[in-house]
C-alpha cells in the first residue's frame, strides 16, 4: 500500500462497529502508564532486571517524556556514587531527595549482588556458559547474577599482561600448540596434546583439542571420555563446556562466547585457555588466590609498566558491616610505587563497581595484612572468587 493511497473502504456497518469496538476496548484497556520509579530506573541502568521488566520500563520511558529526564538524573547520580566508598554512599543514603533515594537503592543492590555472587561460581560449574546465557536471557535471577559475575570476571581479560603471546584475536585462528599450562592432562603421556583456537568475527569461539600418539596418528585411546574447556584468570578457572573425545579429538563451538563478552573484547591472552578431563574435580576458585593489580597514573590512565599482583590468603568477606581481606603485597610494590595507595572495588554488576577503600602502600609491607573497610548495611557474605574484585594502585592525589 503506497503512502498516498486512500486505502480500502469498509462498509458503514463494519466501520461503525470497529470504531465503537475501539472506543470500548480503549476504555477497558489496562495499560501501565505510570512513570518508572527511581528504584526501577537504578535497577534498569545496572542491568539487573529480567528482560520482560526491562522491556516494560522502556515502553514507559518512550511514552513519558518526563521519565526520560529523571533517567538522566539517576544515571548521573549512579556515576557519582560509583567513585565513593561504601561508607560515603551509606551516608548519602541518609539524606533526603533523589540523590539519597538513588544511594539507598544502589546500596541495597550492592548488598544483594555481593551476597548472591557467592553462589555464582557453583552455578557456573553446574550449568556452564550456554545454559547460563540462555537462562539469563529468560530472566532467571540466579543466572543473571552468575552471568554478571562472569562478565565482571572477564573484564580482567581486557587488560592482558603485556608481552604475553600468542593471543586470540577476533577473526584470526591461532595455533596455541602444546602448552602444559593450558592442557592439564598428565595421564595422556606420552601422547601430545595440541590446541587450536579461533575467535571469529561473529564472536564464536572454536577450540579443537587433538591428542597425538608418538606415531604421529590421532591417539584414540581416550575416546569417549569427556574433556572440559575452561577460561582462566590468575588462579581461577571458569568452565565453559564439556565435550567427548572422538578419534583423539574434541571440538568446542561456542557461539555465546562473543555475545556474552560483547564487542569490547577483541583479544584474549592465550593463557586464558585451560583443558582438563571432565572427571577431574572442578572448582572455580581456591585460596590463596592472586589478583592482578593495575597501576594507574594521577589521571586514572594505566601506566605502561607490567602490572603486579596481590595475593589473597583467604576468601575476602563482609561481617558486621565491615569488609576484610587478608592479603600479601609483593615486596617490590611499595618500592616501585612509593606513596601510592592500593584501591579495591567490588563488582556489583557487569560493569558497575562499588569502591571499598584505599590503603597507602608502606615500605616493607610484605607481611600478611588485613585490609579493612567500613561497609554499613552490608550483609555478611564470603566472596568465593577474587575475580569480582578490582585492584588498582594510584599515586597520591
Amino acid at each position, binding site marked *: *500500500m503506497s*503512502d*498516498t493511497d*486512500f*486505502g*480500502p*473502504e*469498509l*462498509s*458503514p*456497518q*463494519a*466501520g*461503525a*462497529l*470497529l*470504531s465503537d*469496538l*475501539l*472506543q*470500548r*476496548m*480503549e476504555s*477497558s484497556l489496562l*495499560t*501501565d502508564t505510570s512513570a518508572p520509579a527511581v528504584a526501577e530506573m537504578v535497577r*534498569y*541502568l545496572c*542491568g539487573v532486571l*529480567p*528482560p*520482560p*521488566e526491562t*522491556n*516494560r520500563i*522502556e*515502553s514507559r*520511558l*518512550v*511514552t*513519558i*517524556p*518526563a521519565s*526520560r*529526564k529523571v533517567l*538522566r538524573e539517576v*544515571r548521573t547520580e549512579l556515576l557519582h556514587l560509583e567513585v565513593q566508598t561504601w561508607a560515603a554512599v551509606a551516608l548519602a543514603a541518609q539524606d533526603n531527595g533523589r540523590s539519597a533515594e538513588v544511594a539507598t537503592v544502589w546500596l541495597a543492590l550492592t548488598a544483594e549482588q555481593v551476597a548472591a555472587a557467592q553462589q555464582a561460581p557453583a552455578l557456573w560449574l553446574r550449568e556452564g556458559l550456554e545454559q547460563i546465557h*540462555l*537462562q*539469563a536471557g*529468560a*530472566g*532467571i535471577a540466579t543466572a*543473571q547474577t552468575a*552471568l554478571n559475575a562472569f562478565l565482571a570476571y572477564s573484564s580482567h581479560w581486557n587488560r592482558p599482561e603485556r608481552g604475553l603471546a600468542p593471543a586470540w584475536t577476533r577473526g584470526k585462528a591461532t595455533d596455541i600448540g602444546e602448552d602444559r599450562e593450558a592442557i592439564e592432562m598428565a595421564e595422556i603421556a606420552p601422547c601430545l596434546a595440541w590446541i587450536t583456537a579461533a575467535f571469529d568475527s561473529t564472536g564464536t569461539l572454536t577450540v579443537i583439542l587433538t591428542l597425538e600418539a608418538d606415531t604421529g596418528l590421532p591417539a584414540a585411546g581416550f575416546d569417549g571420555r569427556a574433556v572440559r574447556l575452561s577460561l582462566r584468570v590468575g588462579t581461577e578457572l571458569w568452565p565453559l563446556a564439556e565435550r567427548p573425545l572422538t578419534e583423539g579429538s574434541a571440538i568446542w563451538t561456542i557461539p555465546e562466547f562473543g555475545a556474552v563478552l*560483547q*564487542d*569490547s573484547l577483541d583479544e584474549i591472552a592465550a593463557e586464558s585457555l585451560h583443558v582438563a578431563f571432565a572427571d577431574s574435580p572442578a572448582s572455580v576458585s581456591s585460596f590463596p588466590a592472586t589478583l592482578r593489580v593495575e597501576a594507574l597514573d594521577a589521571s586514572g590512565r594505566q601506566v605502561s609498566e607490567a602490572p603486579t599482583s596481590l595475593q589473597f590468603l583467604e576468601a575476602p568477606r563482609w561481617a558486621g558491616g565491615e569488609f576484610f581481606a587478608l592479603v600479601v603485597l609483593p615486596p617490590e610494590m611499595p618500592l616501585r610505587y612509593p606513596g601510592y595507595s592500593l584501591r579495591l572495588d567490588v563488582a556489583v554488576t*557487569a560493569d*558497575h563497581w562499588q569502591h571499598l577503600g584505599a590503603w597507602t602502600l608502606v615500605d616493607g609491607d610484605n607481611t600478611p595484612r588485613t585490609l579493612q573497610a567500613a561497609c554499613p548495611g552490608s550483609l555478611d557474605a564470603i566472596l568465593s572468587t577474587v575475580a569480582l574484585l578490582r585492584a588498582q594502585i594510584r599515586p597520591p592525589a
Partner: protein
Amino acid sequence: MTDEVLLMRLTGEDTRAAEQAFNVLFRTYHLIALGMLRRKYFDGNREDAENAVQQAFVNLWQARHRLDIPNIAAWRGLLRLTAERCYIDIVKAKKPEFELPPELPMGSGEEEIVETIRIAFLLNRLNFAADVLWLGLDPALTLEEHNRRLLAAQLFYLEEWSLKEITQMLSRTRPEEAAVSIKILEGWLRDPAVLRQVAYSRLYFTRLALTVHLLGLPEETEADHLETLLSLSEAGHSALPGLAEWNWHEVHAILWRYHRNVLHTVSPGIPLCTLQDSELVKLFVICRNKFPFSLVMKNLLYMTQGQLGHICGEKKTGLWRRLAFQYCYRNSLTHQDIHDRIEPAAQQVEANVSLIVLQGWISDHRLLGQLAAQCKKLYEGGLE
C-alpha cells in the same frame, strides 16, 4: 546425560525413557520458555503466559513421535514457537468484556477483519500494526526492539545524550545480549522509521497532555489532578494556585473542552459554564494559538538537522495519517480538532494536510480499513 540424548529419547519408541527425558526437559526448559514468551509479550498477562507454556509442553509430548529435533537449538526454536502459538490461542479464546451485536449486515469478509483487529488489540499489538503501516516500522522486528531503538533516538535527539552514553546504557541494561556499537546506533538514528517514531512521540498529545500544556501545569501532571481542578472550579473556589494565566471560569471551560472533549457548540454543551458563547469562542482561539504543535515540529527539524523534512514532507503522509488515526479512533476528536492538531506541524515541512485531505482519509473509515488490511497481513497465520 546431555540434552541431545534427552531429545533422542523423547522422540524414541521407549515410552518410559521418553517420559523420563520429558520430565528432565520440562524442569530445565519451562522457565526458559516462560522467559522467552514473556520477553516477547512483556505487556501481556503472566498467567496466560504460564498456561501457554504448560500447554506447549503438553502439545509437544503428544506430538513427540512426529517431531524431528536434530539438536538443542531446534528444540529451543520449536518450544518458543509452540509456546507463542498456545499463548495466541489463549488470548484469542478470551471473550471480550462487552457484548458484540449478534448479527451484523456486513460485507463479505468483514467479520474476519473485525476479529483480526480484536485479537491485535487484545495482544496490545494494534498500535504496533499502525506503526508498521504508517510509520514504516519493520514488521520482522519485535515491539521490544522497536522500543529500544526509539528510546535510543529519543535520548539522542530530544534529551541530548551523547552516542557513547547511549551505547553504554543500552549495553548495560541487557548484559545477556550483544553490545550496541556506535555504528549500529548511528544506523538506527538515520532510519526513517525511527525518525518518524520520534516525531510521532513528540507530536501526539493525548487529551490529558494537551490540557496540561494549555493550563501550564508540569508535564507529569496526572488525570486525577485535572479532575480535582475540575471539582474545584465547579465549587467556585477563589484561590487558583499555579494557574495565574487563567481564571476559574476559563480553567473550567478548558478542562471540559480539551480534557473531557465536550464541544460548547453541541448540545448539551459545557455544563455549569458561566462564560458566554462569544467568550468561549475567544477563549478557544487563544488556546489554539497556544497549541504546541508548530513549535514542536520546528524543534524536531532542528534536532534532526532537517532529516524529518525529507521523510514527512509533501506527499509523504505516513506520519500524518498515523496521528489522524490516533486522534480519531483513540481520542474521538472531530475532524476539525484533528486538523487543528496536525496541520500546524505539517505546515513546517510543507505537507498538505488540509481539512479536505484529512476528511478524505477519515471518512468512510478508510484509515480503519487500511489498518484492518495491515493487521490481516501481519497477523494472518497466527500472529507470528
